[in-house]
């Protein structure tokens, strides 16, 4: 094990352990803040995967945007002083069982030793330029569709939330 492995394990634990809090905590605000550590750990993992632009994007969009939205939703929609009302569960044991089975299947497939056609030690290069060129050439249609989607969301969110003018 070289030193970077310890760092990788640390990042892995940092992104997996808070996810348990997200799934099982009785306090929703605690869940929301645990999600922060998961997202930050994922950004670190992207760094390990030589996806520098994606790591920055993860911090910007997830930590800076989506997490704030989720916290806003948590704080806006419940009485903070009765958190147990907010974090109720439905059919917890069967769901836990199915979740464990799902993980067991995934882990079984993972440990079955599928011979992926892997490349060892692909060089880690800056990706931003290549990603930009790809977005505007091969994936141009999806790129444009995403911009239309964002415009629709912008208008739709306002239309859903606004009060009716009578």
């Amino acid at each position: 094990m070289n030193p970077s492995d310890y760092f990788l394990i640390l990042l892995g634990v940092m992104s997996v352990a808070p996810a348990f809090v997200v799934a099982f905590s009785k306090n929703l605000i605690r869940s929301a803040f645990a999600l922060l550590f998961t997202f930050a750990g994922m950004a670190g993992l992207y760094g390990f995967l030589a996806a520098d632009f994606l790591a920055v994007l993860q911090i910007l969009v997830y930590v800076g945007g989506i997490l704030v939205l989720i916290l806003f939703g948590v704080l806006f929609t419940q009485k903070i002083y009765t958190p147990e009302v907010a974090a109720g569960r439905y059919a917890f044991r069967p769901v836990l069982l199915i979740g464990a089975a799902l993980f067991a299947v995934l882990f079984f497939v993972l440990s079955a030793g599928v011979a992926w056609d892997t490349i060892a030690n692909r060089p880690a290069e800056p990706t931003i330029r290549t990603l930009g060129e790809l977005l505007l050439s091969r994936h141009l249609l999806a790129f444009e569709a995403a911009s239309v989607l964002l415009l629709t969301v912008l208008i739709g969110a306002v239309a859903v939330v606004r009060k009716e003018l009578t």
Partner: protein
Amino acid sequence: MNRLETYLFISSVLAALGFVTIASRRNAVAILMGIELLLNAAALNFVAFGRFVKNAAGTHPLDGQIFAIFILVLAAAEAAILLAVIIAIYRQSESIDVERLRGLKG
């Protein structure tokens, strides 16, 4: 350690936990958190496969990251619209317990 399987393991744990969160929580915002966990797990899979697996003919090695970027866009859009819906429901019924939301019509 920096192998494909490490990342697949992390993302499988995240996916299972995301599923548990979505299926067991009664609070709509908590369900949104579960969806984010699942989407993150999927994006990590795309990037890890793109990094470690030899790309097929006619594809680019960074296509996996492009997929992750679009997942990010979709997650942001979905979080915004879901939050708008949740707030509209909350205004109407003072509760976002998905067990108690049975009516569909305005």
